C-alpha cells in the first residue's frame, strides 16, 4: 500500500517570503500522480498543483511549483512571494495511474502553513 509522509506539522513565514513544504511517499508503482491540495480555514479542499510521474519536468502554477524527485520519492511544494491568503493546511496526496475507473487519493498528514503580515 502506498503511504505519504509530511514531516512538517506546522510552518510559519512572513508575507512575500518563499516557503517549501516537504512530502515523501512510498510506492512500488512506476506510473502515478502526485498532488498538493490546500485547505483554508473554510475547510474547502482546493487543488493547487498536479504532477504526472512519467514527466521529468516539474509542474508549475503561477507562484506554486514543485520539486519532483522520482528516485528519491520526494515531492516538495514551493510557494513564492507568499500571500496572506496562502494561510492554510496543505496536503500532499498520491494516486495510482489507471487507464479507466476510480483510483483513490492517499493523503499525507498535512502541514499547517501560516503567512504572517
Amino acid at each position, binding site marked *: 500500500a502506498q503511504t505519504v509522509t509530511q514531516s512538517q506539522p506546522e510552518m510559519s513565514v512572513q508575507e512575500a517570503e518563499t516557503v517549501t513544504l516537504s512530502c515523501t511517499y512510498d510506492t512500488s508503482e512506476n506510473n502515478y500522480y502526485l498532488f498538493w491540495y490546500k485547505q483554508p480555514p473554510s475547510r474547502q479542499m482546493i487543488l493547487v498543483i498536479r504532477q504526472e510521474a512519467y514527466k521529468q519536468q516539474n509542474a508549475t502554477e503561477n507562484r506554486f511549483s514543485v520539486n519532483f524527485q522520482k528516485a528519491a520519492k520526494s515531492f516538495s511544494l514551493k510557494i513564492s512571494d507568499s500571500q496572506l491568503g496562502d494561510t492554510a493546511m496543505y496536503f500532499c496526496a498520491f494516486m495510482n495511474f489507471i487507464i*479507466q475507473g476510480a483510483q483513490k487519493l492517499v493523503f499525507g498528514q498535512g502541514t499547517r502553513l501560516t503567512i504572517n503580515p
Partner: protein
Amino acid sequence: AAGVIQSPRHLIKEKRETATLKCYPIPRHDTVYWYQQGPGQDPQFLISFYEKMQSDKGSIPDRFSAQQFSDYHSELNMSSLELGDSALYFCASEDGTGSLTGNTIYFGEGSWLTVV
C-alpha cells in the same frame, strides 16, 4: 466552471438517527468518491463509484451505505449515528474515462455533520 455540489452543507442529528448526504459531480464526471475528515485529521477514504458501480471501499462503517445513480449523482446514507461520526464529509469527482482531463480529483465544499 461547474464544481462538485454537496447538500446539505450542514446538518445536526441525534444519536441513533439516520442522515443522507447528496453529491452532484462535475458534469461529465463519471467517478465519485466519498471522504470523511475528522477534526485535525487528513481526509479518510470511504468509498468510490465508477460508472454507477462500486469501485473501492475504505474505512466505511457497516452502518454506512452509498450508491451512484443513473445521472451520476451519489448519496451517502448513514444510520445509527454515533457521536464519533461527527465530521466533515467530502464528495469528490473525476473524469474516469481515461481522457486527458482524467486522473484529477475535484472536491466539493463538504457537508458538516454534527451528531449530538
